[in-house]
């Protein structure tokens, strides 16, 4: 019998995930803190390298160092939200599929969607990048004298949401391969997410159109920070308009959902057998 999904139930599931995260922090404080610091170092090293270059060269492609800082703050917030809600491989879904762990979710009396949406919530150990991202955004906004109005804040939230949908939809789209080739494609979501991480921090301003356009369409790394940051600064690039990232996210999500469902149908008829009797993966 599957539980009825209500807002209250969903919030309850987030609460359970948060409680488990807090228990990990309290039970294994030393390692939980090490994980928090590692997440912070990993992100700051990536974004600071681009920022340091912009400082050294007095800007990149018409973007001032402060504008690059704003873009890096946006990127840090995205990384923060990703870790905050994706701490249980629920965004790296090819790992769950490839390791044969989807069955673990099937036996729970809660719809799969609800489990995947809530299981990775880690507000105690996963929030550090999000907090640092907000702090960097505030610093950049002050230096750039941005007028923060309620409308601007709503736009910021909408862009963050669109970027997250794009990241997750793409991860689920490529992860569909893991239904068919669980061993070979187990880490394909890592390629789609972490493999493109550095690329998503590149300011594309000043680059030729034949580099910019593919990075806003085929491989949407320009939508991860550069495009939204310029929209929030009031300069949507390439005349595409501020609603382009939202539109892209919706189309990609619909397409990814259809393909993923097809993969699921294949999986439930074939299953996965990744584990050897003594514990190692095949």
């Amino acid at each position, binding site marked *: 019998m599957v539980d009825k999904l209500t807002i209250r139930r969903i919030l309850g599931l987030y609460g359970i995930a948060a409680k488990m995260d807090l228990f990990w922090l309290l039970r294994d404080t030393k390692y939980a803190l090490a994980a928090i610091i590692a*997440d912070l170092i990993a992100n700051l090293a990536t974004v600071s*390298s681009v920022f340091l270059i912009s400082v050294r060269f007095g800007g990149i492609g018409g973007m001032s160092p402060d504008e690059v800082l704003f873009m890096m703050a946006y990127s840090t917030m995205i990384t923060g939200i990703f870790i905050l809600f994706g701490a249980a491989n629920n965004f790296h879904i090819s790992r769950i599929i490839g390791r044969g762990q989807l069955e673990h979710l099937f036996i729970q009396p809660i719809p799969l969607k609800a489990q995947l949406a809530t299981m990775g919530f880690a507000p105690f150990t996963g929030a550090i990048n999000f907090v640092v991202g907000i702090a960097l955004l505030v610093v950049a906004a002050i230096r750039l004298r941005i007028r923060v109005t309620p409308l601007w804040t709503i736009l910021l939230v909408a862009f963050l949401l669109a970027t997250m949908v794009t990241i997750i939809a793409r991860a689920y789209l490529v992860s569909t391969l893991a239904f068919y080739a669980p061993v070979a494609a187990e880490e394909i979501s890592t390629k789609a997410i972490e*493999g493109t991480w550095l690329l998503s921090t590149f300011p594309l301003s000043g680059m030729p159109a034949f580099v910019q356009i593919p990075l806003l369409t085929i491989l949407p790394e320009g939508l991860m920070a550069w495009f939204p940051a310029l929209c929030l600064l009031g300069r949507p690039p390439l005349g595409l308009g501020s609603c382009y990232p939202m539109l892209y996210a919706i189309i990609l999500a619909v397409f990814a959902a259809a393909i993923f469902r097809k993969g699921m149908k294949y999986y439930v008829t074939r299953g996965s057998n990744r584990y050897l009797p003594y514990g190692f993966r095949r």
Partner: protein
Amino acid sequence: MYKYYVTARMSAQEQTNGGILYSLPTVILKICTLIPLLFLWKTIMNAGAKVEMSLPQMMTYTFLSSILSDMLVVKTPATGWLSEGVLLRLYGRPFSVLGQLVAQTAGGWVPMLLMYSVPVLFLAPLLGVRLIPASPAFFLSLPLCVSLGFAVDFLFACLSIRIRNFSWLIDRVRGAIVVILSGTIIPIRFLPFGIATVMKYQPFAALGGSPLSIFVGAGDVREILILQIAWNLVLWPAALFAFHKSQERMVSYGG
């Protein structure tokens, strides 16, 4: 040596067991990162900022960094050897564990060299990249960089044993350190606020950034080689000692 050669060959074949199709995402990603990175440098350097490297030097630096990426910052399977069951496989064979790791890692470079590095070489003239080293010392610096890379990797592996198998945590920190401290993506000499002066003496600077700088003729060859040799002399004994001490701490039950 034959057993090491066979280990390396097995490792190379292992990468393509599922068919080369599954390596394509990595190849595509590498190309999709390389081209924007080259244009990023073009955009930055054409803006007229005065730096110690010319645009052609920077293009070559970035290009070479991409095609030799596995060698410039070595990563063995050792960091994940407890969670992935690598440990069981290595200790079950009658030859040196570290030797196997070196052979396995070097063998693992071959498919990507053949599928990515060699084909991309043909793009070099189109991208304005000159693939002739400015100094023959590059051919000494590269092995020193690889050797130091193994020592650094073994130290990280010992750290992963020490902190109870948090291999992903080690991976993240190492990845972050490499981005900024090794100079493979951004030359250390480009860092602002005088950071570059201090950073060039730390051990990670003797990794990828060193042979790349020698190749494009943007560094003091003598100083770079001395630092690389010095760090090899310091870190190899440290890695061997740490590994010897760590063996008794290993606990593994697969992944």
